[in-house]
């Protein structure tokens, strides 16, 4: 595979988005203070509909902190955050819960599947909090990540890669405005990492908006563009 060409194509797409798509995520002066530590310092980013953005930076640079705020799990100390046109930086916790289930799909490094629920039920759980659990629809999503044969397995009966695919299916099932993934391949071997990368790539091609935190430059290269963080600030 010629990465050079891939990169160019992605760059071309990127310029495309900036002209045509509406912004899904817009932050202005986003700051997060943990005591005296500024985990995020005056961060302005914009992610447009259909974009695949990689967030990179050294350990402790504030990637997870940023993603937590973007996913409405945390609130900024200062600055504004608009998600899908709505200012969510001033919302109350119950309001943010609504935003989480309506707009956000989360993919975790540790998968966070519920151990006593089957793969299918783990997907249905997201539907349950969103609206109502629908086994057929959940099954379709599992099929789309290649796991229909594993639907009735418990997480402990699945490989790491399979668990991560269940996690991705769970993130997809409610058709979120954006998928936010924090080092989704951090716990996987190379082979499974590749599978997950391909899956994310495919989702991107399907037109999903994705923000991905990664340490892996190869994965970063697959994204339309990369946001770099250093000491909580945008780098370059």
């Amino acid at each position, binding site marked *: 595979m010629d990465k050079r060409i891939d990169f160019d194509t992605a760059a071309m797409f990127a310029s495309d988005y900036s002209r045509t798509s509406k912004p899904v995520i817009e932050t202005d002066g986003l700051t997060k203070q943990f005591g005296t530590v500024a985990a995020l310092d005056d961060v302005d980013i914009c992610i447009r509909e259909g974009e695949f953005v990689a967030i990179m930076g050294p350990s402790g640079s504030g990637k*997870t902190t940023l993603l*937590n705020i973007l*996913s409405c*799990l*945390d609130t900024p100390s200062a600055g504004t955050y608009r998600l899908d046109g709505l200012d969510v930086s001033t919302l109350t*916790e*119950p309001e943010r*819960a*609504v*935003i*989480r*289930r*309506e707009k*956000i799909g*989360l993919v*975790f*490094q*540790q998968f*966070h599947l*519920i*151990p*006593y*629920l089957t793969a299918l*039920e783990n997907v*249905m*759980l*997201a539907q*349950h*909090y*969103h*609206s*109502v*659990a*629908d086994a057929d629809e959940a099954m379709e999503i599992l099929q789309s990540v290649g796991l229909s044969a594993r639907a009735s397995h418990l997480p402990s009966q699945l490989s790491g890669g399979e668990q991560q695919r269940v996690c991705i299916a*769970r993130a997809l099932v409610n058709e979120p405005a954006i998928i936010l993934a924090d080092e989704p391949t951090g716990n996987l071997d190379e082979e499974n990492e590749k599978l997950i990368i391909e899956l994310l790539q495919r989702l991107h091609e399907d037109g999903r908006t994705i923000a991905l935190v990664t340490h892996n430059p190869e994965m970063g290269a697959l994204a339309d563009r990369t946001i770099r963080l250093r000491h909580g600030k945008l780098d370059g």
Partner: protein
Amino acid sequence: MAVNSKLRSAFLWRMLVKALTVRKGRAAIAVASIMVGAAVVFALTSLYLDISRKMSEELRAYGANFFVGPAASSPDRRFDLAAYRRIVASVPEEKLAGASPFLYGVVRLDLGNAVLAGVDFTGLKAISPYWQPEGGWITVDFDERNCIVGRGLADKMELTVGKTVTVFNRDKTFRTELRVKGIVETGEAADEQMFVNMSLAKKIFGTGGRIDLAMLSVVAEGTEADALAARINTQFPEVEAKPIRKISQSDGRILDKIEGFMALVAAIILVITTLCVNAILSAMVVERTPEIGLQKALGADDRAIVLQFLAETVLICLVGVALGLVVGFALAQVLGQTVFSAWVSLRPLVVPLTVGISLVAAIAAAVIPIRSAIGVVPARVLKGE
């Protein structure tokens, strides 16, 4: 919308059962705690509601507890038998264990004078359950050929069961022959008396329809007896009714003490149950912190989290209560047999009462764990590591 909520609760139910099955050990301990609490509440409440009845049954075994005599204004110190009948009829049937009128007078027997009492044998038997006549009771009303004789009198008059005794009234204008049906030993004045049917006594003494007094055995708790006496006294001015106090008052005091003690035991057990369930639920919440964090990240709001844990608590509680009712019923019987030598009957009221109290205890136990579940910060617990 209705279909949606049905589907929602179906999934919630499925999740809940799985969540509890995977923690069988903890869930079982919680169920057992509720079971013990519910059983004690059930048993003690059953006893409490049944105990007054049981106690007054015990009490009635010691005799009549209600006395009716003539009013002070009565010229012959007697009152009408008809008034007695009306008084008895005015006492609710379920409150009346038995009653007998008494008409006393002196008669001449072959060997000397004796006190003869006219009574209602059916009533006398009911208000004097400890009388065990040798030979047997007179069971037929209006039986005018038999009599019951007190032990002391029988010895003096050389009477034995089956013997015939000739009875004259004072001025020898009336004479009848009576067979001694039974001889009774009571340790009371009755030992020196003989008993015949009221109809015969009326003929012997020629008092018309007048009687000396009446004894009643009434199921009356606390102030009920006083209220009954007051009512009879106003309604029937020709008589003076009063409860016989000695036994019922001390009985009431013991009853109060036992009831207070039972309430205390039930309260202590309930507090222990609540603390125990609280500890188990708290441990469950701690164990499930990552799970709760994930649920919140998926958009579960506080209401959903509360609903989930409340549903689990209620499920645990209902299973515990179901077992508790069975155990409690058995416990009530053991206590009833030990303390009162009686079976405790199932009062329908006790079941909802036990379920209600257990639910309150379980939900109280869940308050702190549910608060800590709500307090879970997903951003913090999902970091993993």
